């Protein structure tokens, strides 16, 4: 309930962008462990130029997801990404909260 009231509707944005003929990928949080910032089901939509709306982690790993999404748009095959463990790597990628998330990235076509 809480997100819909304040955030832009990612899926409507995706439909609109697709209607404009833009090439898109949709990223979705499919699994979380520990204190992940966004719940499963959260979406991020990305176009081929790297524009995006929504979030899969509240800002921590979006940069990495956008880069992977551009590959998915070009290659066509979906990808599963995994981020975050409670160590130095996680801090660097951004999940400093110690959470772990799995993100499914697919092309919208």
């Amino acid at each position: 309930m809480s997100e819909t009231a304040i955030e832009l509707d990612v899926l409507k944005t995706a439909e609109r962008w697709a209607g404009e003929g833009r090439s898109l990928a949709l990223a979705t949080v499919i699994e979380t462990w520990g204190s992940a910032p966004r719940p499963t089901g959260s979406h991020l939509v990305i176009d081929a130029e790297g524009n995006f709306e929504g979030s899969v982690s509240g800002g921590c790993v979006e940069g990495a997801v956008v880069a992977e999404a551009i590959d998915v748009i070009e290659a066509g095959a979906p990808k599963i990404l995994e981020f975050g463990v409670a160590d130095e790597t996680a801090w660097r990628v951004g999940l400093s909260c110690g959470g772990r998330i799995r993100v499914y990235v697919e092309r919208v076509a």
Partner: protein
Amino acid sequence: MDRTLLAALNEERAARRAAVVVTELATGRQRLVRESEVGGDPLADPIEKAIRSGKSGIAETGAGEVFLNAHLPPARIVAIGAVHISQALAPMAKIAGFDFEIIDPRTAFATPERFPGAVLTAEWPEDVLKARPLDAYTAVCVITHDPKIDDHPLISALKAGCFYVGALGSRKTHARRVERLIGAGIPQSSIDRIEAPIGADIGASTPGEIAVAILASVIEAFRKRKMFAERRGEKEPA
């Protein structure tokens, strides 16, 4: 995701109906399962569970991992009555994350000056609800004190299975209301769903405090998933 599937999903969301996107992670194969189609789906059980809990997640199946993304309509609160309590409830409901709207045909009450930024309709509830019907993901608070305005949306709320139904008024006022509802053919089990006096029993006195009490009750009903009849202990629809 197929664009047709995306459009169909958005159509369900716009119509305030639950739907689940099923994705086979190994193959990328995907399908949309509407609330009305769950029973016929091979994954009916986990899909049903995702809708009931409102939680998306992975299900292990014969075909490997499958992700079930449950899309439920956003919760909203409809307040019948552009009264002092609604003035406090409007910003609070928004902060708590609910869509919020007020309906009151009395134009002296329902003015934008009294409700800056709120969705406000100065028409009879029966007319408004015809265009924007109530549903299970809606909480209804009737707070005008006036049966001419309150009774119709109250009955509509019970029939629609709204996840929360509250009515302002003393026990005496409510006893008279119950008589009217019985007279209108509403079963006692439905009438029992009405929270009256409205709001959590915290001794609220001022309009602001009553708004807090109402919101507490609405949040409780929402988080306990009272949009599902069996969670309300109901077997038959009103």
